[in-house]
């Protein structure tokens, strides 16, 4: 739109001042008309570079598959890179609320980035759909809703499986970051209730060249099971170290490890690992009774049609689910105001809180006023690595 006057000037060099002014006026008018027309503006901040880019890039892929309209409103999607840097994430969020006047903020896929973004969302009264399980103190998450399952919900699924398999003691080997800490906290609380003893807690970082020492210490305690908390292709290395140190018991991995990278890097060492996961990545194998089956199959089919077989992953699913929740909540909020207004944003939040049970690709979502996590305990699925493939337990 802004290019038009330049173009005109180039072609009609004899343009006098008067017609130039009228051209400017015309431009101004079209700009005003643009902002008055009610587009639904969604600001997305994702780690497209940096350590968490493996989570952000597939989400961006899924956003490219979004329709151009939501509930009859033209969709204006703005995707910015936060480089896995909290400062950038906050900068993006501020730009969204002050310059772009977005109706919804989506992101970030990295927990440490999503947390400070929540402050900006709350200050401006804009709903944030965090694509990471961002832990926020009570009262801070009034405007923040999470798309991923909470670590607590996933830990519940894992503990149930452990109890059923007679696991009495567990060794913990996890990332020394927010993801590892949050799992440790949730898991410890739940394990205590089931009388499962945590015999050792060891940490490592994704970039470590060796976890031999940690594996050695845990393996010498010889617990019934090991819990490895790591993500993506970083999840295989610690498990290989445990096996190398002669550990023979059960090994559990979290939902961040539920990608094929685990088998690609781990090879035969990760055989018969138990991985807790959302239903999305395992769509076809879900029993027909699972509520998410149809939605998950739809997500997987469309995503893999666009990006190739086996490209499915947890985080693209979150971007898919974001569209589902918007499609459900936007029509309700539209009755109370036009997109771009404060009323609409407030109405959108209430719509999210009152939308009841919603089946998404990652499970059954139920946001309420007091619970902005929302996934029910029916969500987690236990997978087992059998012949380098996933099998539902």
């Amino acid at each position, binding site marked *: 739109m802004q290019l038009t006057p330049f173009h005109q000037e180039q072609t009609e060099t004899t343009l006098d001042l008067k017609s130039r002014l009228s051209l400017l006026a015309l431009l101004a008018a079209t700009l005003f008309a643009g902002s008055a027309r009610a587009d639904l503006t969604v600001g997305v901040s994702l780690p497209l570079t940096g350590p968490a880019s*493996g989570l952000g890039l597939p989400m961006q892929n899924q956003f490219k598959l979004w329709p151009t309209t939501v509930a009859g409103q033209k969709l204006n999607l703005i995707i910015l890179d936060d480089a896995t840097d909290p400062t950038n994430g906050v900068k993006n969020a501020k730009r969204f609320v002050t310059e772009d006047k977005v109706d919804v903020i989506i992101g970030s896929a990295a927990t440490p980035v999503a947390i400070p973004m929540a402050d900006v969302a709350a200050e401006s009264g804009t709903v944030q759909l965090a694509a990471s399980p961002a832990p926020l103190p009570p009262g801070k998450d009034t405007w923040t809703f999470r798309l991923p399952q909470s670590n607590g919900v996933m830990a519940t699924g894992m503990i149930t499986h452990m109890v059923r398999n007679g696991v009495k003691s567990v060794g913990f080997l996890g990332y020394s970051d927010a993801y590892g800490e949050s799992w440790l906290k949730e898991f410890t609380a739940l394990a205590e209730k089931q009388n499962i003893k945590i015999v050792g807690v060891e940490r490592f*970082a994704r970039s470590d060249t060796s976890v031999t*020492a940690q594996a*050695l210490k845990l393996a010498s305690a010889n617990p019934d099971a090991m819990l490895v908390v790591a993500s*993506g292709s970083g999840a295989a290395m610690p498990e290989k170290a445990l096996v190398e140190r002669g550990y023979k018991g059960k090994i559990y991995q979290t939902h961040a490890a539920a990608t094929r990278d685990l088998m690609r890097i781990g090879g035969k060492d990760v055989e018969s690992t138990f991985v807790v996961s959302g239903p999305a990545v395992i769509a076809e194998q879900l029993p027909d009774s699972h509520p998410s089956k149809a939605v998950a199959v739809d997500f997987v089919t469309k995503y893999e049609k666009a990006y190739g077989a086996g490209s499915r992953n947890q985080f693209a699913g979150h971007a898919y689910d974001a569209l589902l929740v918007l499609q459900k909540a936007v029509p309700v909020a539209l009755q109370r105001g036009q997109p771009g207004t404060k009323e609409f944003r407030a109405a959108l939040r209430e719509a999210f809180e009152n939308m009841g049970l919603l089946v998404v690709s990652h499970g059954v979502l139920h946001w309420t006023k007091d619970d902005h996590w929302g996934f029910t305990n029916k969500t987690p699925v236990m997978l087992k690595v059998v012949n380098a493939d996933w099998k539902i337990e």
Partner: protein
Amino acid sequence: MDFSIASILALDGATNGAVYALLALATVLVFAITRVIFIPQGEFVAFGALTLAMLQLGKLPGTVWLLLALAGLAAVLELLQGLRTHRSPTAMARRALLTLAWPAAVSVVTAWAAPRQWPLAAQSVLTLAIVTPLGPLVYRLAYEKLADATVLVLLIVSVGVHFALTGLGLVFFGAEGFRNPSFWDERFALGPVSLSGQALIIFIASIALMIGLALFFGRTLQGKALRATAVNRLGARLMGISTSGAGRLSFGLAAFIGALSGLLIGPTTTMFYDSGFLIGLKGFVAAVFGALSSYPAAALGAIIVGLLESFGSFWASAFKEVIVFTFILPVLLWRSFQHGVHEDEE
């Protein structure tokens, strides 16, 4: 902790320490000759490991494109410089061709070989042939014009080069990690310790490279020229030693050592496009142990860093990096006591 655990930890620490030692040597080498604190040293480690991973997948690694782009830029610079100094067209063309010849040849061979899945050893040699020339080219493009700038300016350039190379690494190799196949899958039982063939290769390669470097510096003309440049740049220049040539050679060695470290460490851990930075940084801590000037002290520092890391992981894994990097403080303190207070030169 009993003897068997301690020996396993010591072996693990020494294995990693051997790789840090290589990187520490490269850091000392580059600093002594060009006064550049070479932060991107670790990027060559990642490039080496991941280039091999790409060749393993039968894909053309992105580093080949980087090599061609950098060589193209360097050739253009040569031409511009030739025009400014009124060189004859044939001399200009010859220099430009010389710059382009090796990268072009390596690229053609790689493009031909990549889908053919050569054996691991051949692919490793190819990887070294791709990554090593990146060093001199990086020096040519980023540092050569600034060769006489202060250490601080060169450090800032290093930070810039580091970010540029890390970003390119993400473009070339993607965000996911790779683990290369082991060069030697054998295992040897030494009492409680089981020594893997890969660890043995790491030790042998590190020691061989150190001996090679010692011979190079002690016996060859080029090595002596490098040493002369390290001792006194101006004096070396007066004796007819090209300091920019010395700079390129030192960066070439650094890139070679980096790529080799990447090949060595690739089978023992999962490498990501940004993994190199921390590995290189640990090499730097070791180099500081040698006051950025002594090779044996730097190698010793690297083994200490490796041991600290493995024993630190055992006792307090949550504080491992803290322990390793805090190690630099007493070293600096000891160094400053030993040498007294220096005036700030820059």
